[in-house]
């Protein structure tokens, strides 16, 4: 199957009839022979293949970092793709300069990926919050330098960027003036405006829907060539709205779009903390909520979050729409009540009104960016020291993402106390059945879930439940 795909690659217009399931990485390296973009894993875990994707929408152009190894051409229509070669023409950019000055490459194989990631960070505002700067390169692996020199280079550019002469301006003209972007970027918005296509109806007669591709392209990249595929990007909603006490999130919404949504921020002030534990920034820029729910991983992070919010999914088959509570969606390991041709159009939940607290916890081997060994979310409504309504979910402790119904039921009407916590733990253990795998033994996962539940209480009710409870 081929399709006409239009996008801009660095300064060149690409208009080509091509199989849309081919990855952007293969296209730029093999077809275009732009070998500055490297390959370290082809699974989204090393960042060597990172490129920028400029998305033009509503008259504005925003750039995000993405892993080109997991990105199908079908998902970049009408975008501006920037590889390392497109970041400098005659003069090197301040990021490249900082890398050279600080000796931030050793073998250099990871360097283009790091430079693209950091440039992406600056393009999105580049605040001087060190944690955020680090988060932007959290998905890049360097086996040589030990990162110290890279962090120095990052600090340096962030500092320059926030200095008076730059003052963090992110409009294209300022960025060109500061040397961060080459001059050809000036015309990109106008050129992209011409490339925009109208959204089309989703074709239900397909073997496989492709969302962000971050899961599919790890699992079965070759197979996609042989089956009928349908790209959802651009054709299903990517919005986050509230109306009539209900929040609805489009099935195509990316993790990062949720992370930066003002609405979700106002509902869950700690949301950035949760998302920092979920995948790397380039993955979050591609991965969708629809994909996370439908891939049915027992430890899908956003699935666990929405389970605790008692969310429902809105499914659409083109001819029929229906709604299902999320907690009833899963029937077994990686099996779910979605029929062929149905796609997840929205996920919705009631916006809480009274006094409530929410928390998400995740533990994995590495401190960051690991797929969880165990994760858990909790949503409590309470009044005067008593829990009025509770919902706890847990991942990694059963074949499906689990809503802990007994524990949740138990908590309703209980005082916020050590005793309640300890009783909850007992009930929780009867609801789960973790297995031993690479991420840890079953026994260990049981222990972890206890710790996570304690952490929920400590984080939601710090006045009443103290850190010592962890012991």
């Amino acid at each position, binding site marked *: 199957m081929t399709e006409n795909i239009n996008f801009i690659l660095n300064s060149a217009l690409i208009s080509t009839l091509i199989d849309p399931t081919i990855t952007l990485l293969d296209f730029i390296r*093999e077809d275009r022979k*732009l*070998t*500055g*973009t*490297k*390959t*370290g*894993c*082809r*699974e989204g*875990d*090393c960042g*060597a293949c990172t490129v920028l994707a400029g998305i033009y929408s509503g008259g504005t152009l925003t750039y995000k970092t993405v892993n080109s190894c997991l990105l199908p051409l079908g998902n970049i229509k009408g975008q501006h793709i920037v590889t390392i*070669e497109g970041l*400098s023409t005659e003069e*090197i950019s301040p990021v*490249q300069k900082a*890398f*050279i*000055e600080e*000796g931030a*490459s*050793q*073998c*250099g*194989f990871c360097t*283009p990926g790091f*430079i693209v990631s950091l440039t992406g960070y600056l393009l999105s505002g580049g605040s001087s919050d060190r944690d955020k700067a*680090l*988060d932007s390169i*959290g998905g890049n*692996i*360097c*086996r*040589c*330098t*030990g*990162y*110290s*020199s890279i*962090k120095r280079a990052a600090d340096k550019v962030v500092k320059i960027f926030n200095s008076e002469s730059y003052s963090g301006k992110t409009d294209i003209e300022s960025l060109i003036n500061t040397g961060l972007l080459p001059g050809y970027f000036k015309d990109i918005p106008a050129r992209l405006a011409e490339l925009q296509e109208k959204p089309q109806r989703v074709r239900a007669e397909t073997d496989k829907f492709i969302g962000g591709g971050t899961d599919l392209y790890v699992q079965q990249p*070759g197979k996609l060539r042989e089956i009928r595929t349908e790209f959802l990007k651009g054709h299903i909603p990517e919005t986050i709205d509230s109306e009539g006490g209900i929040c609805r999130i489009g099935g195509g919404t990316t993790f990062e779009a949720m992370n930066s949504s003002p609405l979700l921020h106002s509902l869950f002030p700690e949301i950035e903390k949760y998302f920092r534990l979920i995948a790397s920034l380039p993955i979050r820029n591609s991965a969708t909520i629809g994909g996370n729910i439908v891939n049915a991983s027992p430890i899908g992070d956003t699935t666990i979050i929405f389970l605790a919010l008692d969310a429902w999914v809105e499914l659409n088959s083109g001819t029929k729409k229906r709604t299902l509570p999320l907690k009833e969606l899963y029937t077994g390991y990686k099996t779910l009540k979605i029929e062929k041709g149905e796609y997840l159009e929205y996920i919705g939940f009631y916006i809480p009104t009274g006094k409530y607290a929410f928390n998400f916890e995740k*533990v994995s*081997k*590495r*401190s*960051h*960016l690991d797929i969880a060994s165990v994760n858990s979310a909790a949503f409590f409504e309470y009044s005067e020291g008593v829990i009025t309504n509770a919902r706890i979910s847990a991942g990694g402790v059963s074949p499906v993402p689990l809503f802990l119904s007994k524990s949740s039921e138990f908590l309703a009407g209980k005082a916020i106390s050590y005793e309640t916590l300890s009783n909850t733990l007992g009930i929780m253990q009867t609801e789960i059945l973790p297995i031993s795998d*690479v*991420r840890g*033994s079953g026994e*260990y996962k049981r*222990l*972890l879930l206890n710790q996570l539940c*304690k952490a929920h209480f400590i984080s939601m009710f710090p006045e009443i439940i103290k*850190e*010592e409870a*962890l*012991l």
Partner: protein
Amino acid sequence: MNKKEKVSVGLPDNLREIIIEIPEDEPKPWDGKSELNYIGKRVKRIDGIDKTTGKAKYTFDVKIPGMLYAKFLRSDFPAGTISEIDLSKAQKLKGVYSVLPAQDDLPLIIRYAGQEIAAVAAETAEIAETALQQITFKHTTSDFVLSVEDAIRENAPLVYQTTVKEKTTEGDLDSSESSVVQEGNIRGPKIFPEDENAEKFDDYLRNCEVIHTAEYRTQVQTHSAMETHGVVVEWGSDDKVKVWASTQGTFSVRNDIADYFKLKYNDVRVITEFMGGGFGAKFGAGLYGIMAAKLSRATGKPVRLMLDRKGEHLSVGNRPDSLQKLSIGTTKEGKIKALKLISLGTGGVGTGAGTSGPIKNIYDYEKIYVEESDVFINAGPAAAFRAPGHPQGAFALEQAIDEMAHKLGIDPLEFRRINTTGNYIRQTQYVLGAEKFGWDKRNQVPGSIKGPIKRGFGVANSVWYYIYNKGFVATVTINRRGEVQVINGVQDIGGGIGTVLAMIVAEELGLEPDQITVKIGDTDNGFGPASGGSQTTAGITPAVRNAAYKAKIRMIELAASILGKTTDKVTMEGSRFSDGDDISKSLSFQQVAAKIPGDEIRVTAERRSDNLGREEIKTTIDGVQFADVTVDTGTGVVKVNRIVAVHDCGRPMDRLTLESQINGGIIQGISYALYENRILDRNTGIMVNPNLEMYKIAGARDVPQIETIIMDFNQAMNSTGAMGIGEPATIPTSAAIANAVFNAIGVRLRSLPITPDKILAALEEQSK
């Protein structure tokens, strides 16, 4: 003819003068008093622009017209015999040029899951992949062993029916070995000292006043360089072979290919313009190199064979695991009398699992006894990995030392101090490191901190060796326009040797490093060292300086003739040549160069032995690292907050790249301590995590604050005095972390990696 020179040696604040004897045509070695412009400073890499703009071409990036893409078919069972292979269906696929078995004649014995069975060369990588699925074979499977414990059991399935010869590379320390016995799956033991009697030694140990014995385990770590192994081979119609290789030893690739195909060395050219990391695993042509060459010869087209991440984890090297039983005997006062190590380890189907470097070379002792054996299992072969054997050895030894100190009630640093009294470098390192780190603020009673988050400090020593080879030939040219080149075959594995060579030539000729053109990474450029054993810099820099010196002498002679003076009257200030009697008469470098007869000055110099006729040169490279960690006793997660690393490395060349080497070594150590682990499925023998998702490597956010103290230790043993740092920095990190974890929680974790579940289990055990 030799000449005598007076040089200052030792640490900067404690220099001594000695007289050395050196060949007439070599410059006086840089010594403790030399004031240099670039050497020892922070100098930017000369290839910075190429690397930051994506212009740098790695083997992975080589694209030649008509190039075919090759891939391996690998076994998905760990043991068995392939009696027939049918390649015909694969061969018939459109776009497939050649399909070859991995071994010319059958049967092919399979010894690990992931072993190569056949290779395909096709127009695209995708076609090659499809073709692999068309290859069928007849095979039987047999029983297999996946761990040291299983492999040493009586009647365990044998990995080899034949005796295995140790295969070593430039990355290994010791390639000479006397006959080692092989029985069952055990190859060994190698005993040290060879004439020691085990029972007599045990008697001696038993009679020590205080004894500590414990067992320590380390896991298998894979090298995981960012650029995978691979080559592009162009077999010419004239039977001249050109190879682009991601290698840390261009000459080792040349030799392997030439030897295998019975070609002249001169007809094989190996090029490594840029390479994406090796860490010891990239020596020689490998089966991938040989197969690519066969496929290229068969098809008459260039063939690219780069491994994928999975193949990389499975088949081209790893750090062996270890099971070390270690005993220490001391006096009541804490003087070490006896050290004993019984070490078993597996390099899969490969060898090289010894761990005894640290125990033999760090502490003073009266008596030592070491028994170390390789155990074969059905897993991918080990390869030299950054300081082979030493991180494993240090993990056991340095924890045992800590445990002994604890037993004796002596501060662990003090215990180390009183048992390394003869080593003044170490003594200085302890003082410098402890002060910078704040060792005195350490939690005096392990595990005594209140609350769920516990912080602890730990320390560990490392040892490595000053190793160099001879015979490398460096060429320096100066042409009539004054352009300067330095030429040698050495590859830059990432350590920045190209930049260092430019610095040396610039230093000698009074120029700036970016005025020097560096031509390296090509076997046509003259013999250069392999980057193994931290010997690149020590190997090649003296030859380069000697060549630059010779070129300088030629320039001075030329200047003298222009000025109409004798050479001893010509002085050199920067790159200007002046008449010593009248310094207003001077010539620029370009002015002198313009008078070069013919086209250029071209001189070569060789790496010779270090200067002779002097007291012994110190051949250990010492280091100590301090770790500060916190342990979350709720989740078991360990976080490393800070590492202070004190290392000696001879004369530092480029401090920027040197620090980077140390930082990189430390992160690999942290990653080894906490995350990395090759896991084999017990039932199938297949690696469960041959990727970077489940095979976790430390990322930018796992990195602690790292502070390095580099000791400028001058021995002036040759013209540059460089030693090495590539390996030492990764040796003590995991042990220092383990000791810090003990200091935090009061429980010992004697097994790597220190994962959250192990911490929680250990805490639970303790609370019982």
